[in-house]
């Protein structure tokens, strides 16, 4: 498979782009790539309204893309479903109808049993402070969205990070803003909260000195290895491992890769598990890609795809290649891939895809600047990217065999 990828797909990918990669004013534009207009104010078409559409969670289920958004202060986010084959938005659901007082769905979506998906919410910050909730979502074949409030796992806290176990029976999460780890049994609805990975007083002083908040230092992504151990980051640029069977924590000897003096910025914000079971992670602090070998618990720094901090998303395609989104504001996100046995890091820069919709039938080019989410279809054929803008769209490109 890897040879096929290296010999056929990657050259084909290069040829199908509009011009040479890495050149100024040329963009990553594979032939069959396209954008779906999901956000547009004052439209006769079904669209998400302004400032409530930053796409911060994505999941692909067959032909359907489920999105969860984050809204500006005082506004409520949405769930939405788009069709890849129809290249259009099918359904939207205002989260205010299910859980009032929420600001965002930024955990991603995680599979339970059957077709159930789970996510956590971030509450709006205001005088009438509400907590975040667990959310159970079911997407029907026609794109219908059913969302059910599962309640508040950590009293007074929002949900910053979430993960489901391999069996789809248990959820693991990080609360916001204190950063406590919790487990949630889907069948019994029982929650357990642990303080072991939450930042301590000395950590909080360091964060205050560096003028960074919980968005910067709390673990943004969790992953479970093939043995069932859950991994995440914590204060001091360290990594923890949680054993769900023993309900116990251990702490890895290796720190996250860091730039000297900037360890305070260590935060895992993306994970992807390779077919061989190795865990690939992205450190937001300086945008390093690293690999964690779950058998040895060793971390290897693989380097950076670009100059900027952030590494917001990582996904393996059906070609076996690891795709990711590096960078972000104050610059732009860059789509990249990492081919361990081939070219290593390849920066694809800003993607620019054609967007066709009623009223713009001739097609317009859409350039992705602030891409923040990336998901692969179950068959690995499509990569779906979501923007984090005032008016955010979906950008989709096919991946070779």
């Amino acid at each position: 498979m890897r040879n096929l990828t290296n010999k056929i797909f990657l050259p084909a990918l290069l040829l199908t782009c509009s011009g040479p990669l890495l050149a100024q004013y040329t963009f990553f534009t594979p032939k069959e790539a396209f954008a779906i207009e999901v956000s547009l104010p004052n439209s006769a078409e079904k669209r998400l309204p302004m400032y409530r559409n930053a796409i911060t969670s994505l999941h692909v289920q067959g032909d359907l893309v489920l999105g969860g958004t984050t809204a500006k202060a005082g506004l409520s986010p949405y769930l939405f479903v788009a069709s890849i084959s129809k290249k259009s938005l099918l359904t939207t659901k205002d989260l205010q109808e299910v859980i009032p007082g929420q600001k965002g769905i930024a955990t991603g979506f995680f599979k339970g049993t059957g077709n159930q998906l789970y996510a956590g919410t971030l509450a709006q910050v205001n005088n009438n402070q509400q907590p975040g909730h667990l959310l159970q979502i079911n997407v029907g074949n026609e794109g219908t969205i059913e969302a059910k409030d599962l309640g508040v796992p950590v009293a007074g806290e929002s949900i910053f990070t979430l993960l489901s176990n391999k069996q789809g029976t248990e959820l693991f999460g990080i609360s916001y803003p204190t950063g406590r780890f919790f487990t949630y049994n889907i069948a019994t609805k029982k929650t357990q909260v642990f303080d072991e990975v939450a930042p301590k007083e000395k950590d909080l002083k360091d964060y205050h000195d560096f003028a960074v908040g919980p968005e910067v230092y709390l673990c943004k992504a969790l992953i479970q290895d093939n043995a069932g151990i859950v991994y995440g980051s914590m204060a001091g640029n360290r990594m923890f491992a949680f054993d769900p069977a023993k309900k116990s924590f251990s702490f890895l000897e290796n720190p996250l890769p860091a730039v000297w003096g900037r360890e305070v910025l260590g935060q895992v914000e993306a994970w992807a598990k390779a077919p061989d079971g190795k865990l690939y992670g992205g450190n937001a602090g300086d945008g390093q890609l690293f690999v964690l070998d779950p058998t040895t618990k060793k971390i290897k720094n693989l380097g950076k795809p670009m100059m900027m901090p952030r590494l917001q998303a990582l996904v393996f395609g059906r070609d076996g290649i690891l795709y990711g989104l590096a960078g972000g504001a104050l610059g732009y996100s860059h789509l990249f891939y990492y081919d361990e046995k081939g070219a290593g890091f390849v920066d694809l820069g800003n993607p620019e895809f054609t967007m066709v919709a009623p009223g713009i039938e001739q097609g317009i080019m859409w350039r992705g600047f602030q891409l923040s989410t990336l998901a692969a279809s179950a068959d690995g054929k499509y990569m779906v990217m979501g923007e984090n803008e005032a008016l955010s769209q979906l950008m989709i490109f096919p991946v070779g065999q």
Partner: protein
Amino acid sequence: MNFHFTNPLCVATCWLAGLLLTTSNQAAHAQKSAISEKNVAFIEYPDFPEAHSTWGSIGYNAASNTVHIGVTNHRDNIGLFTYDPSQNAMKLNGFIRDMANLRSYQWQGKIHSKIVSAPDGSIYFTTDGGESREEYLMEHPQGYAGGFFMKWDSKTGLKNLGIGMQFESIKDIDIDPKTGMLYAITYPQAHFLVYNTEKNQLRDLGRLASSHVPRILFTDWWGNCYYVDWRQRLVKYEKDSDSLVFARESLPAFPGTPGSKIITGVTAFAKDEAKGVIYLITYGAKLIAFYPEKDGIGKVKDLGGVIETGHADAWGPYVPNLNIGKNGKLYYIIGGHDNYVVKDKTVLVEYDPASGKKTILQEYPITAVTEATGCDVRDKDGNIYFAARRNPKSEGDFTTPFMIKFNPEKEISK
């Protein structure tokens, strides 16, 4: 140093302008033009030998009856000029990097924005990287820090009002003359900014455009500001509601207009407040009358193409300028960026809103007038102005900037 029309260079310039007009008259279209070389003057920028170009960087200051122009070497040096019509004098006020105390890592490539004025006689503009390194080098030592808001007046000089967005150029600016609120659009991410200079409160209202950034903002007489989204729909910053209002429908476009033209939207505007209309030209070569309303989006009327193009695509012509005479007629120069409706010539067109008639008044070889910008720049005597440049050898990008002064109703006193 002032530049007076009594010097030899001025005489040569006027002679050249006259020669071009005479020549172009002979080759012009069938319509008879009432104007002659005496209606036009080409005015040079003194004391800046490396000057390369002007962009949208021209504006009229009613308080002092002066025209202000930003002229650039299109790399890292920008001269700020003032033209005084009463004295026929063009003066270099100074260079932006010196007046604004910019360091080398804060280099600016040009003023791309128009120059807008406040009732107190101060002017405002924004700066732009102008080079592709602005977009790609970022945190590199040769990278671009970001475009600045700037204020200048003849008494106190230049005041640096700070950066809009880190790494982003600022393509255009406009002002609410009643409150002094500034509006701006950034490049390449097309973020719409609202800046209260008194409170130093800068707000980013987010990305509004697609892959290509529409270059023009404009305001109505209430101080609301307009832009376009990627569907070429008007987007209004409505000051009373402090919110963005999107038009339901797109501005008129010719059938078959490519998406690349649609996403670039409006290229020029001119206001006729007495008649309650703002004229617009789109990148798809439509001339449009827009009737703004204080609340909500107003009506739009399609006035047809900017010129009859025969067998050529109606959406093809490029018009980055628009002025309105005291006679209520519109004047614009078609051509630029290697896009000309008459081979290797730019053309000056008059449009009479009363009759709907469009007339080519003059044609200029692109070695004489390669391209011109300028929106709504008219002094109290009815002279209108374009910021132009010429490429004398018609090779590469070796242009020199100059200003066109034009009066459609009377001769220009030299």
